[in-house]
Structure formats: C-alpha cells, structure tokens
C-alpha cells in the first residue's frame, strides 16, 4: 500500500467513524433520556463519591461495576457491624446507597442497623459519660435510620416497603403514632402493598386521641370489608372504640371475628 493511499484511507476511516458518530448523536441522547426516565443511570458519580470509594472503586463504578462495588462495600459494612463500628457502618451505608439507590434492601437494612442496633448499643456505651449523652446518641442513631428511609423513599417513590419501614420506625422508635399512621397509609396506597398495612393505619390512628373518630371509621370500614380484614384484633379495637365514643347500641357490630389470629 502506497504512503499516500494509506494516509487517505486512514483519513477516510476517521471521517467515517466521526460521520456515523454525528449521525447517531441525537439518537444516543434520546436513548439516554429514555433510560433516565425509566430509572437507569440515575447515579451521579461526583467528586464526593471519588473521595469515599477511592480511585480504583471510582474507576470500577465508572466502568459499569457499580453493583459489585456496592456489594463489596456492603460486605465490609457487615464486618464493621461484627466489630460494632457504628460510625464506619453509617459511612459505608451512605456510599452503598449512593452507588445503588434503587436497591431497597440497602436502604431498609441500613436504616434497621442504625435505628435499632446502633441506637440500642448507644445506651450501653460506657465511653459516653452520663445517661443524657447516651440518650442523645441513641436519638441521633434513630434520626440517622430515619434519614436513610426518607432518602430511600425519595429515590424509590413507588415502593411501599420503605414507607412501611418508616411507619414502623415512627411507631416503635419515635412513638409518633400520627406520623406512623400517615406512613402506613402511604404504603397501603402503593402497588403491591400487603393488606395488613390497612389495619396498621387504623391501629396507629387509634392511638392519636384527637383522631379517634377517624380511627373508628377506619375500623368500621375494615369490619365492613369482612373476610381476612375482620380479625380478632380489629374487632376488639372496634368494640373498644364503640364504648369510648358512645356509639348507640343499634349501630354497634355483633359479628364473630375471622378464625385465625392476625396482626
């Protein structure tokens, strides 16, 4: 091949690749927009992530290995849990959830570790002098757990699971029954939500004195729905509320509960 011919072929090759690149550019942009709309490529791999995962981790994440990097960091967080290094765990959980924001499991378990395990451990932390400090640390870990769930919900608005977990946290850890009822209601309204969530809404609403009438209406609706919703717990609460609210005898329920006990 002569030198001139070789140069012209190389030039032609470069021009051909560039021309095709230019032609498919709008299509690529459209395809990327479709992918983003469907929930893909939502992670912004920024400088803060680079600092947290190190250069090789960042390079791996950039090369399409976000999920394996997240899995490895999750295993590392498990190691930190075994050594009860709560701060390190929180930091690793932050990185994992940044890398894989659509994996519900990571948000759910990160929140559970913080709000339940770390908060309980804080109360037994002898390095913290005084009950007040330990209680403050406990609340901070609960807040951290709640924060994981709230961020998880922002990233996965269609998932009932994280709303349910937030409702449980508000109920058991913060004892904010009104907020817990609202979270359970949001969870119950989402696709695929289990039926017991509707009962959870009523149970929590019943614990808020100023919402007693609302709770009564909910229990009544569950009762009217019948079947699996007419559980002994629902019936007992409904009867209790009828007495509390002074419901006339003619409007009170009389039916027997469903056979198997349920929450």
């Amino acid at each position, binding site marked *: 091949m002569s030198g001139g011919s070789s140069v012209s072929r190389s030039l032609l*090759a470069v021009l051909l690749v560039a021309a*095709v690149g230019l032609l498919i550019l709008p299509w*690529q*942009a459209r395809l990327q927009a479709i992918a983003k709309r469907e929930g893909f490529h939502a992670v912004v791999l920024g400088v803060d992530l680079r600092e947290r995962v190190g250069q090789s981790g960042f390079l791996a994440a950039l090369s399409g290995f976000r*999920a394996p990097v997240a899995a490895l960091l*999750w295993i590392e967080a498990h190691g930190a849990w075994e050594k009860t290094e709560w701060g390190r765990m929180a930091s690793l959980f932050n990185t994992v959830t940044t890398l894989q924001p659509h994996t519900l499991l990571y948000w759910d378990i990160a929140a559970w570790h913080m709000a339940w395990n770390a908060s309980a451990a804080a109360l037994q932390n002898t390095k913290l002098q005084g009950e007040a400090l330990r209680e403050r640390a406990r609340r901070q870990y609960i807040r951290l757990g709640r924060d994981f769930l709230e961020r998880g919900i922002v990233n996965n608005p269609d998932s009932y699971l994280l709303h349910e977990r937030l409702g449980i946290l508000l109920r058991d850890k913060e004892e904010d029954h009104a907020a817990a009822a609202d979270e359970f209601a949001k969870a119950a309204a989402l696709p695929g939500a289990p039926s017991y969530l509707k009962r959870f809404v009523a149970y929590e609403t019943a614990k808020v004195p100023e919402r007693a009438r609302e709770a009564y209406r909910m229990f009544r609706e569950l009762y009217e729905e019948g079947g699996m919703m007419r559980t002994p717990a629902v019936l007992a609460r409904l009867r209790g509320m009828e007495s509390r609210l002074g419901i006339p005898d003619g409007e009170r329920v009389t039916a027997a509960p469903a056979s198997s006990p349920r929450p």
Partner: protein
Amino acid sequence: MNALLRVLAIGRNTFTGLVRQKVFYFLLIFALVVIGNSSFLAKFSFQEEFQMLKDTALGAMAVFLSLLAILTTANLIPKDLEDRTIFTILSKPVPRREYLLGKLLGVAYLLALSALVMGILFAAVLFLREQAALAETRATFSGTPQELAQALDAVRKGAFSGGMVEAMTLLFVKAVLLASLTLLISTFATSGIFAIIVATSAYFIGHLQSSAREYWMAGIGVHWWTRIFSAFVALMFPDLQAFNLSDDIVAGTLPSAALLWQTLALGGIYASVYYLVACLLFQNREL
C-alpha cells in the same frame, strides 16, 4: 452463498483456535467467584445473599466478557501473521473483508458460549441457594399457611427477579462491540499488546463518552479546546455507558422493550461500523 460458507469456516476455525488456547479456563475462576461467594454469603440474610450474589456474578460476567473480547481479538491478526496462516488463507480466493468477518464471528461464538455457560452456572448456584432458603423458611416459619405462601413467594422473587436474561444479553452485545472495536484497532496495530492497550483505553474512554457528549451538546466550554476535545470523544468513541443497565436491573429496575431493543440496535450499529472501517483499513494493508 459461497461467501457465507467461507465466513462460517473461518469463524469455526477461529473459535477452535481460541478453544485450543485454553481461554475457557477463566470459567473456572468465574465458578470459584460465584460458588465461593455464595458460600461466604451464607451468613447474611437470604435477601442480602441473593442481592450480592447477583451483583457480583453479573459484575464478574461483565469483567470476563470484556476481557475475553479484547484479549482474544487483539491477538487474532498478529498471531495469524506470526504463524503465517493469514497468507495461506488470503492466497485463496478469500476477500479480506470475509477473513475479518470470519474472525469476528469466531470471537462472537466464543463470547456467546462463555455468556451461556456463565449464565447457566450462575442460575444453578442461585437455584440451589433459593432451594436452601425455601427449605429453611418452611422449617422455621410459624404463621398461617397463607402467610407461609407469601414468605415463600418473597424468597422466590428475591432469588429470580426479572431482567437477568436482558442484563446478560446486554453484556454479550457490549462484548461483541468491544471485539469489533479491537479488531479495527488490530488492523493497523503493530503488535497484539499495542491493540490491547489502545482497546483498553478506548474501553475506559467509552464509559465517559456520554458525559463528553452531554458537555459538548450543552455548549458548556470554558476553553475552545475543551469543547473540541469533548466533541472528539463524543464522535469517535462508542457510548459504553448505554449498555450498563445491569447495575440497575439487579436493583429491580426493568428496561422497557423500546429501551432494550434500541440499546441492542445501537450495539449492532457500532459493531457493524467498526467492522466496515476495519475492512477499509485492512483492504490494502501490506502483510
């Protein structure tokens, strides 16, 4: 018809040659990664175990397929030149474009078989772990039959979530694209190692192509040369990020048929263009 038979024959020979080089040994490493990982993960909850098994297995598949595509293709032409088999082939009435297509086809066979074997191995390990989790749930669950059925269903959904086949197909298409790009590089490369280095660099730059494209198309540019550089990357390199849907698929996000088919078509277009350019460069190359 004759051309097709010639291409198939070259493809078969290329595949046989690659198998003789014992490239399938990497499958043992993959098996170790998946099985070892699975045993190690047994201390986690079954949801965590399934999630991480899928994450690492798909990640390992992506690594092995990409490595296999680049390393095997980069050495095809240099090895044929060294063994002088290229002269035997091209002295017959075999056009160079058919020779290149046959080589690419041989690598594609290898990649398809590797993806299939890795997929079967991964599915088998996942199935065994799923059965173990189901048995454990049945043995330890104390709720009503309906609640047990729900719990078992949750285990099944956790193990075999949708989109795994789609994720593996995308990994395969990305690997074929890389093979085609490496073949193009090897048509002007002076050695196999040169082709490997350039293809690996292109692999990393290809993952930044979408960022460069956005930067260029948005008209952001502090300096004129940064805009020219972004334009160069956007036009000359493939958008490899477009094929990285598996990270989100394992997290439960499923691609629509439109997204999947368009991404596969994009891979096909890239692979075809690189093959055509490889033909152009290889046509008059002095051997």
